[in-house]
């Protein structure tokens, strides 16, 4: 993992305006490369020349004030929103801006939404069954049946997310935190190359948050993960390289400690 730089911050003097972090360049280890992406809604720039590089195998946390563009960044990566400018590439040369949500999901990019969205009418088991890594073609789905090994995998995940005894219940009946876990479980079982988690611990108790941190650290051992969170205790628990977004671009990037002590970050985000 690239724990090379303790501080790759844009070392700017305090109050010198929004000088962007130096645009990073991709290496052969790069999994996700976002370059100069801008998105505007009715003239308002939700993303403003955003550049971000995530290495394969990396765990990255992204923080930033409300409206900084964190969710919009995920929308761009997963094909929900098309950027006005800029490039987004995956795994070297796959241009994500040309693909739709379905194609991007099939490439191996999984996403957990800010508002937990499990399929409420289906049972916990069925939610996992839908997410399980398998061919997604409509005829395959019509004729396929769960293999024994897939059943075992669902059982395993049920244990991991602590929902084994609620497997037959409709997902709509779960508590908020349990829905978040189910959604993480669905991502896990999808086994994507890149996982995008938008505020996975929002609305969780401290204990649930701790467990979730362990879960994510565990997932990050075998996957590339990007986590968006506001909960700084949780971000510290993850202890990963952290990017601060502000007004649609990168304000700072580095270790959690470095970022937390950065004067501009304190000013626009943490110090509020």
């Amino acid at each position, binding site marked *: 993992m690239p724990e090379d730089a303790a501080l790759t911050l844009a070392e700017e003097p305090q109050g010198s305006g929004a000088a962007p972090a130096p645009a990073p360049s991709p290496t052969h280890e790069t999994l996700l490369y976002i370059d100069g992406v801008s998105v505007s809604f009715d003239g308002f720039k939700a993303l403003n020349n955003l550049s971000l590089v995530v290495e394969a195998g990396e765990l990255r946390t992204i923080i930033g004030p409300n409206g900084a563009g964190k969710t919009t960044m995920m929308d761009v990566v997963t094909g*929900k929103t098309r950027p006005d400018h800029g490039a987004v590439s995956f795994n070297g040369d796959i241009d994500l801006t040309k693909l739709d949500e379905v194609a991007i999901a099939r490439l191996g990019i999984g996403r957990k939404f800010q508002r937990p969205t499990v399929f409420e009418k289906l049972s916990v088991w069925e939610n996992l069954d839908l997410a399980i890594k398998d061919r997604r073609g*409509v005829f395959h789905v019509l004729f396929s049946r769960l293999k024994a090994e897939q059943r075992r995998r669902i059982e395993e995940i049920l244990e991991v997310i602590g929902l084994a005894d609620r497997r037959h219940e*409709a997902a709509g009946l779960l508590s908020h935190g349990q829905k978040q876990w189910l959604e993480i479980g669905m991502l896990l079982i999808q086994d994507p190359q890149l996982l995008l988690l938008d505020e996975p611990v929002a609305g969780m108790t401290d204990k649930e948050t701790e467990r979730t941190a362990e879960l994510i650290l565990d997932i990050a051992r075998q996957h590339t993960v990007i986590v968006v969170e506001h909960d700084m205790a949780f971000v510290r628990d993850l202890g990963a390289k952290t990017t601060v977004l502000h007004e649609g671009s990168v304000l700072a990037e580095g270790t959690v400690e470095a970022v937390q002590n950065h004067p501009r970050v304190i000013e626009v985000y943490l110090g509020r």
Partner: protein
Amino acid sequence: MGPITSRLATMMTPKGWAALAAALLVFAVVLPVLNLAVPPGSPFHLPDFAVSLIGKYLCFAMLALALDLIWGFAGALSLGHGAFFALGGYCMGMYLMRQIGERGVYGHPTLPDFMVFLDWDELPWYWYGFDNFGFAMLMVMLVPGLLALIFGWLAFRSRISGVYFSIITQAMTFALMLAFFRNEMGFGGNNGLTDFKDILGFTIQSQQTRVGLMIASAVALALALLVCLFVVTSKLGRVLVAVRDAENRVRFLGYSVTHAKLLVFVLSAVLAGIAGALYVPQVGIINPGEFSPANSIEVAVWVAVGGRGTLLGPILGAVSVNAAESYFTGFAPDLWLFVLGGLFITVTLFLPQGILGLLRGLRDRLRGTARTPVAETAGHA
């Protein structure tokens, strides 16, 4: 259990399979015997008109079942299913026309009467092949299926759903109706296709043929029900429930919502086409009136009344609404439309799960087991 038997077990409970077998026995064996073998004087005799009526109802039931697959399970309310039914009917009608041969009024060896009347001197190319039963049956499925494929692809790809989908399907059936009214189309204009003589060599008017058609309709309905059950109990069935729940989320899992809806829409159109093909020889005519937008709306009423998203409910709905219609038009034809409208409003307001929901509720109450209906596969939009 082998893989096939275990798959069949997921489709229905053993009781369900037994009920289906019993129903088939009644419609394909008992009723035919009561009609053909029991003498007319006996109280057990089934009158001829009842055979025609039941045969017709079975076709309507299949049409309602087809609509339930796309509306009840994929959440897309097609108000153009009458068009698929009519297209299947026209394909069958074309076969039946070609069977008339020289027995037409004008005695032309190949041209149907209405073409001779229009001074045409050769068969249009799209009538080729319809003298062959196998080809005609292929077209019965292919024509509605292809129309649904093209139309559905355009609609679902553009993410047209909800009321917009209903409106454009109404427009589709309306446009087809206008087209089929035109004499130049070559489908008999507003008279449609009629005066059929025989089907597969059997005289179409004979009681044996009528009974045969009723049996065929019952078997087709049973097979259609099994196909629908197979779909809704498959993983695709769960994808469809998920689509109704949170369509966008399904896309981020990598499932193509367009493909899922399209498959179900095409399958549903094919089933509607087969129903139409079985209907036409039993009523002896197919004309552009079958494309009328009101017809398609009525099918949606059958489904809603019977219980949307239950497969069995729409079958009950089609039969009971049509039985009520036959009854009312007997003594108060003017009242029927009000009754139909009132029925629809009552069901929408008070019986969201239709007749079937009501029956299941009663059964559970009688047993004293208050099972939650949430567990049913049926969902609401």
